């Protein structure tokens, strides 16, 4: 069995206008997300990326934990599992082990993946099982009304950090890379087309792929931190606060300072867990 990263079976191609309806559970709409929240943009990017892969929806499982982002699978007409706070990854690991042929996509948030589920996150990265982990990162616990999370930037306001957070943050990408993820990328809801391509690459990568997706919570994070509107948040955080990795190389260090990089930040090849498991089984059975 090959340990090579799967080659793209269908070349990436943007499709517009796109018909989302065949991928949605229309009866579950309207969604619960606030106006100005970017989660819907991310959902749509995900659907376009899945469509581009050509993988049938019955061959995909979408798994989530608890939080605003974790409501995503409820709206999607795939094999879906809405689990417990922080536990999307162990559940996804179980699904992948039982049915290695399924494409397993995990939809989670900064609180769900990096706080209560932080332990599962690092160990999922370490195993390099073929999972696509999408971390919707809005720097706050949105669903419970805006408590500080592991990605709340220092000095920013949250309901549990009234005068600004003093805790250092996790950088999702650095953490994922250090823990062993073989595909690490960052995107934003603002750069929706770029995000679609990044999600496509993440799904096609064989091994654990982690996507840090910068997104806005205008209702809590925005309001607490004096952003005038959802669009201003997107501009300041997602547009002005980031740089594409391809542009960054051409810029002097002072222009890169304080900006988060977008695009594929790390890619490596290591044996995928399920394939290793199968090899071990064959060996143990003397085949």
């Amino acid at each position, binding site marked *: 069995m090959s340990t090579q990263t799967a080659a793209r079976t269908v070349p990436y191609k943007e499709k517009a206008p796109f018909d989302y309806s065949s991928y949605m559970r229309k009866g579950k709409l309207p969604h619960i997300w606030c106006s100005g929240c970017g989660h819907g943009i991310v959902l749509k990017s995900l659907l376009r990326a899945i469509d581009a892969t050509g993988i049938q929806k019955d061959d995909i499982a979408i798994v989530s934990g*608890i939080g605003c982002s974790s409501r995503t699978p409820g709206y999607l007409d795939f094999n879906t599992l*809405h689990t*417990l*706070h*922080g536990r999307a990854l162990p559940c996804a690991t179980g699904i992948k082990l039982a049915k290695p042929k399924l494409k397993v996509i995990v939809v989670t948030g900064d609180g769900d993946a990096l*706080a*209560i589920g*932080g332990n599962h996150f690092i160990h999922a990265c370490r195993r390099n099982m073929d999972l696509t982990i999408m971390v919707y990162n809005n720097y706050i*616990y949105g*669903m*419970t*009304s805006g*408590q*500080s999370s*592991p990605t709340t930037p220092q000095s920013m306001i949250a*309901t*549990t*950090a*009234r*005068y600004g957070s003093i*805790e250092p943050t996790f950088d999702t990408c650095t953490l994922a890379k250090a823990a062993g993820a073989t595909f690490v990328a960052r995107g934003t809801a603002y750069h929706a087309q770029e995000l679609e391509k990044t999600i496509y690459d993440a799904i096609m990568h064989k091994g654990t792929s982690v996507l840090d997706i910068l997104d806005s919570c205008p209702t809590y994070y925005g309001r607490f931190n004096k952003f005038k509107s959802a669009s201003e948040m997107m501009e300041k955080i997602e547009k002005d606060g980031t740089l594409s990795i391809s542009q960054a190389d051409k810029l002097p260090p002072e222009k890169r300072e304080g900006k988060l990089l977008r695009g594929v930040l790390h890619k490596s090849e290591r044996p995928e867990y399920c394939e290793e498991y199968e090899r071990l089984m064959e060996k143990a059975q003397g085949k």
Partner: protein
Amino acid sequence: MAAEAKIKCSVGLTGNSAVAYAMKQINPDVVAAYPITPSTTIVEEFSGYVADGKVDTEFVTVESEHSAMSACIGASAAGARVMTATSSQGLALMWEMLYIASGMRLPIVMTCVNRALSAPLNIHCDHSDSMGARDSGWIQLYSETVQEAYDNVIQAVRIAEQENILLPVMVCLDGFITSHSIENLCLLDDDVIKKFIGEYKPSQPSLLDVDHPTTYGAVALPDSYMEARRQQAEAMTLSKDVIINAAKDFEKISGRSYGLMEKYRMDDADAAIVILNSAAGTTKVAVDEMRNKGLKVGLLKPRVFRPFPYIEMAEALKNVKVIGVLDRADSYTSFGGPLFTEIRSSLYELDKRPKIINRIFGLGGRDYGVKDSLAVFEELLKIKDMGKIDKVYDYISVRE
């Protein structure tokens, strides 16, 4: 009483705000918590008091409820007065640590804002969370109203820290129904509460007491483990009197009377409903309606579920002919909910046992109205007249 003149009444607060305010007045040394609906705003408001310097509390925002209770345990073992709050899955995630807290005899006070457990995911009220924790060695107090939640939190500190008890206490109130409803209540003055709970002086050596080195939670193998458990059981038994005495002293400062349970129009009742928390208020309206028609019905609302006051329960129910126990949680025994099995067991010693049925209601926030309560009373009176029970255990207000 001098203290009574100082009571501030007619303050409108939600259940969660009242609990957060009680915590501010108690001014604990450490609070560690993690957000979960519907308990979130307790800690959220309390964190505001911390930020504004209104309390001296060390406030720790942790990464899960397992860590929240772990931090509480560490702080309590180090000699601090410790409080927290949670709900539902949060309490479920604390499970492992609940037993550590009670086993180490740490007087932690936690508010549990009752919410259903997953799956399916639901954020509304039922008692599955705290009922699941009923055997974890925590004292459990239940609150019908915002006022009771506020009063219970204050009394809980006093009960937990009694030298012969040293057990953690869980104060329960109904998610959204009580936690998010504004109600008028009477607040006590800070200094009155301060005097009532007293300064916390740990009666066992703490981890920070370097002159008396000690260890908590060390291995106890078959030669000693059982003695530790026996002592814990003894403390739970003794806590009944401590709860009663705390209530007596609390009445002196507040004018409000508490006990192991509340009896509402029970004196000559032929039929009675036993029910916890906010649904008792609804049931009282139904009792009044039935009484206006000349029907002898009453309500028994347990306040203390752990320790379970089985003698007093039997005493309160011995003259009732038919009892309906309404459980807002099922324990899937196929026989009845947790409150039912306790009440039924309490009646066993009576020479003449009343007839008793169990009805499961209000799971996941399903509404319980006066009409539901009236329907149960009518069924109870029918059982009284016919002398026979069709179904001991059943669900009400459910689509079959």
